[in-house]
């Protein structure tokens, strides 16, 4: 997607909203990425950087959703596989390309994604509560909502799931999940 397109979307979104509301609408920046042909987004402040997938060292005896660890400029990064985390079955034959680096509770994490697509400005009013269909698939507390974007002509719409990475990667949640998986084994 090129810049012009993005601008169009932003424009359309903001004009749409201005019809109902004349006030200045707060916007946030989100990073959109793809995971098995679906679009997800994170708040830009929640991530530190995006890198290509490096050589990852697997950790024996660790939960399946932990891909392993790697070295990023002298720091050890734990890599998490969201598809394994949510028990998705993967249809996309291509292997993931990017890792999103973030820091949660003083731990550095990498999240494997197929590819990072773009950075968008969206008005907060465009973030809606996630429909049940989605929150069934991913636990509701890990979803901040869905971003609904409409094209200029009002037809082609996009739905992007906003993930709450901070919650998803919090120590407590990962550790309990890890022990559950271990117990099942």
């Amino acid at each position, binding site marked *: 997607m090129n810049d012009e397109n993005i601008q169009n979307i932003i424009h359309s979104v903001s004009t749409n909203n201005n019809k109902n509301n004349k006030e200045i609408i707060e916007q946030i920046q989100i990073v959109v990425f793809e995971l098995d042909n679906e679009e997800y987004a994170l708040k830009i402040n929640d991530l530190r950087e995006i890198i290509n997938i490096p*050589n990852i*060292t*697997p*950790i*024996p*005896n*660790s*939960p399946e959703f*932990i891909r392993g*660890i*790697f*070295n990023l400029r*002298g720091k*050890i990064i*734990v890599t998490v596989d969201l598809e394994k985390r949510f028990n998705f079955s993967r249809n996309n034959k291509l292997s993931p390309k990017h890792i999103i680096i973030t820091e949660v509770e003083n*731990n*550095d994490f990498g999240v494997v994604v197929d590819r990072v697509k773009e950075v968008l400005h969206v008005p907060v009013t465009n973030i809606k509560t996630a429909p049940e269909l989605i929150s069934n698939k991913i636990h509701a507390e890990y979803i901040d909502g869905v971003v609904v974007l409409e094209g200029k002509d009002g037809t082609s719409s996009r739905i992007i799931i906003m993930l709450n990475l901070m919650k998803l990667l919090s*120590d407590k949640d*990962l*550790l309990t999940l*890890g*022990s559950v998986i*271990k117990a099942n084994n």
Partner: protein
Amino acid sequence: MDINKFKDIFISEVEDNLQKINENLLLGEKLLKQKQAGDQVDEKKYREVFDSLMRSAHTLKSSSATMGYTKMAFLTHVLEDVFDNVRNGISKISVDTFEVIFESVDMLSESLRNIKDNNIESDLESYSLRIKELFGTKTDEMVKVKKVQDIKKDESIKKETDIPVYKIKSNETENISHVKVPIKRLDSLMDLSEELLAEKMRLNSILDSKIENSSFLNKEDILSSLKPAVEHLNLLISNLQYSVMQSRLVPAGQIFARFPRMIRDLANKSNKEIDLIITGEDIEMDRSIIDKLAEPLGHLLRNAVDHGIQEKGIIRLEAKHSKDHASIIIEDNGFGIRWKELVNAALKREIINAEKSNEYLSSIEMNPQSIWQPILEKDLLYNPRLSTNDSVTETSGRGVGTSVIKEFVDQIGGDIEVVSPVNNNGGTRFTLNLPLTLAIIKVLLVKINNSTFAIPFSSIIRSVYIDNSDIKSVAETDMAVIDGNDIPLISLKKILSISVENSNTQDKKRLAVLIEKGNETAGLIIDKLIGEEEIIVRPLPSVLKGAKGFSGSTILGDGDTILILDATSFL
């Protein structure tokens, strides 16, 4: 001008000076006591103590006034005058009034902590005036203070200061936030970084010349010109590493310095006469170890005062260097550990059963000079259930915190030895053997399938080839006869759930690394030895703490991350 910029410097300066005042007060008090006992005292030395006290107080006064802490400035001003008057014979100082001065130093420390944490100083006004009155100094009031009559009414303060307070000051556990690095070490760091820059330029120029001069594009040529540069880089980097380590070192004296005061207070409180002899203050250890050392040492020393020494005695605190580690020795010439009572207490609390207790008691009987009894200690001395309960410790003769010490020593990979009684007269000696630095260990790099792992040298005996014919299966465990001993073999592939891609059971020999823990030995089956390496240990991120069998991770020269096997956990 933002004065807060200087707060850190101010705090460190005040800390240093308060420490100095404490040391000199202790010395002064000792000399005064000798004087009163009729001993010959070097008057010159006595005067020097007060000279130095006055100088420290003066420095404190100026710096706190500069920083705008007027109450601290006033109290230190009063103290300065007191010290001045005493050294000139204008005021008299007694053992009792020494106590008041000691307290005022504590109040200054308290105030400093307040400044550090909350940015405000404590209220020291009425206290300052009390001292002023007590010694009859004519200190000018820097700020408007309450009238003397008001102070007299303020009985609560008087009462409070009349009763000496002996709580263990929390600065015992304060971390070292600043390290004083000798200029020489900084210079050598500077030199090294300059050399690294020069080496970088050399590499760049090699690269440039190769690109420009394409006739030069011979593989051999490039390699031969790169080789010396890389070798030199290796040398520089290990020197740099060493220098950085060096600058992290702090002398043991930095934490030892707080103990004389602590011992004095504890001894006064329990009416004991205790001499603390400190040696080896200049032994240097890594800052991170020194930081953690303060608390366990405090426990051991308090134990020595509370339970070791009866009425009069000597406590020795010593730091020394051994081959590859540093040792801290705490020895008292008191009663010694009452092992029998310890065993009985453990029996009473059902930590051990009657059979065990009889076994222990008879072994104590047989060997009264019971030197180093690991099982006894593991079960009893370091058992938190035994040592945290006060009523038990009263009878056991060893106090709170031995489990804390054990924990600390384990945590940093050291060990602890106890000898009690030390000789026929009793006594207890704790020796803490500590690594000099935490970060760097020597490991053996091995390959299992395609993954590389590191095994710490500390647990390795050697590596051996084992003929398949020498391996026997006993109760699902493979055993091999090595040097006449039956040694169990551990399949790392199985333990680490590494899928076996190309099974090499056809091989006639298998490669094993022999590891040991205590008296136990085992062989870890590996695929390939890569070599030895000095690595920097990085702890595993907390989410991976559940992954059993690893003690940490490290980054290799090629940038790859590998796991360090906790070999002894497999035993």
